[in-house]
């Protein structure tokens, strides 16, 4: 299918499998502009994928009920529901608020620097996400001294210091580049 054949880029619901796009807002590609034969092929492939996926999913559900005692299954469901909530209702709003805060705080700062600082915070947070549980778990006295043998708190501290230094260094470099005028390309559409 070709993208250029799509005159309108808004909103029309995809009818192929009776489902619609959920990514983005109002930019869903309409199914228009594709020839009948490619559309039939696409339809077949999509139905095959959906059908195969449903079989795999059903097998997974069977395996779950086969291997896990019935009394344990609500616990699995609870964890799945809690994970969705934790992400959608807590993590994502925090990220959103931080993004707003950063952009407001950085009104006078070049877009490149904001992007670098934002990147630094995200990288540090994601590394912390996998590192902090090691610190917590180590407190529960692991089964033996070879499990979680490192000083993870210290390592995380060192990591943040190095990351902060790199972020500052990169930002300074970006500012200098812009001052010299070669940063124009990176800046392009930031002043709108």
């Amino acid at each position: 299918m070709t993208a250029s054949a799509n005159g309108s880029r808004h909103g029309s619901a995809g009818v192929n499998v009776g489902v619609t796009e959920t990514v983005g807002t109002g930019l869903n590609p309409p199914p228009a502009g594709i020839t009948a034969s490619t559309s039939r092929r696409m339809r077949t492939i999509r139905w095959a994928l959906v059908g195969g996926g449903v079989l795999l999913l059903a097998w997974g559900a069977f395996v779950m009920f086969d291997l896990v005692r019935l009394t344990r299954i609500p616990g699995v469901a609870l964890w799945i529901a809690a994970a969705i909530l934790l992400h959608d209702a807590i993590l994502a709003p925090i990220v959103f608020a931080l993004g707003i805060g950063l952009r407001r705080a950085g009104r006078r700062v070049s877009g490149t620097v904001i992007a670098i600082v934002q990147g630094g915070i995200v990288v540090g947070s994601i590394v912390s996400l996998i590192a902090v549980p090691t610190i917590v778990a180590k407190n529960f006295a692991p089964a033996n001294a070879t499990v979680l043998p490192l000083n993870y708190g210290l390592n995380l501290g060192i990591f943040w210091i190095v990351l902060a230094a790199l972020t500052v260094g990169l930002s300074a470099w970006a500012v200098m580049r812009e001052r010299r005028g070669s940063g124009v390309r990176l800046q392009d559409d930031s002043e709108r």
Partner: protein
Amino acid sequence: MRRLMYEAQRALASPVRNPRMATVIGRLLGAAFLICFGTGLYSHFLQEPLDWMRFATRPEFLYQVTQGTHIIAGIACFPLLLAKLHIVFPGLFAYPPVRGFWNFLERASIALFVGASLVQITIGLLNTYQWYPWPFPFRQVHFALGWVLIGLLVIHIGVKLPTITRYWNKASKASGDDDIDGGHRADHHLVDAVSGDRGENDEAARLRGTTRPGGLTGRALHYIDSTPRAASRLSRRGFLTTVGVATTAVVGLTAGQTFTPLNAVNLFGPRKKGVGQQGVPVNRTSKQAKVADAAMNSAWTLTVAVAGAERSFTRAELLALPQTDVTLPIACVEGWSQMAFWRGVRLRDLADLMSADPETSFRLISLEERGSFSKTQMGREYVRDPLTLVALELNGETLDLEHGYPARMIAPGRPGVLQTKWLSRIEAIES
């Protein structure tokens, strides 16, 4: 409600939240899921082989690589999954929330996909820290969720296929990517449409006609609106770079637990090369297995049973048999591995001594009485392999109690849980 949902989508609009990004990150995440699933299944069937299954014994570090890859790709899922969720987050506020039966199923499947993915990678990671704060058995649930997730992934690809094919290539004009097309920047209009108030979006136009929410909501929205918007190309580049750096960081700073070249920067791996008795990390201890007394008892013997005949070997008798040196890794299901030098008696030699049929598989029994791996099976491909030993020494010393003294199995390409420690009995499985 409708307006609120619309305003939420508008407030959340960002240059990185577009279908091209969803495709770019999605295919990386999909690849990581498939790698995890493939290597996970391999690990599963090594531990629970179906009758007809035979496994490769070379390269001897095969399992180290497959399970190391499982954990590496699994850890890479953290930044990739979060990035993917960040991109598609406005989709949560679609209005109307459900547009019919198929749409309901699709949204339900996405919800399950998101939740199950988050749970799968979280319990996987915490399991490698030997921290189990969940109310269900890890292995069984992780295995079942593996199938569930692959099913949901395939469904998801089927549902989104038109979008995926359309935005697969960078060149695609409406992709919101950076290609310059006759001086006209193709990405502008896309971003305008997203940010709502500048596009010709019907929905936007219609909603602009209506009054915007007042009160607190209105003020919050105004506050968000008055925040400077990020530059679109810069945002996308920054986003992709950030995801790349974050993935490199989480992988690079943990993979040293299995991948020697990264040992020096192993800051956050749950295991460290060379840390442990005789330079090898330990998983199950003699204390957990409650074997210390039986293992240190001077009356210990290893019994080999084949076709009704039995023979018991003292440790001295085993040491008197021809000894073989091998270099083989201990490779744990938890993803760490450690190369080591082992010396002991070839299992094949013991089997031949008892005139066992070369086609027979063996059962390995530990002094440990309870524990899921106190009795395990070994297929004939491992029994006949010249590298498979009843090991008596490790790294030039008598095997430490924590490594399975008086004698343990070591075979190429098997997970650590099957390298039975504190051996007590080896028997041919007569078919």
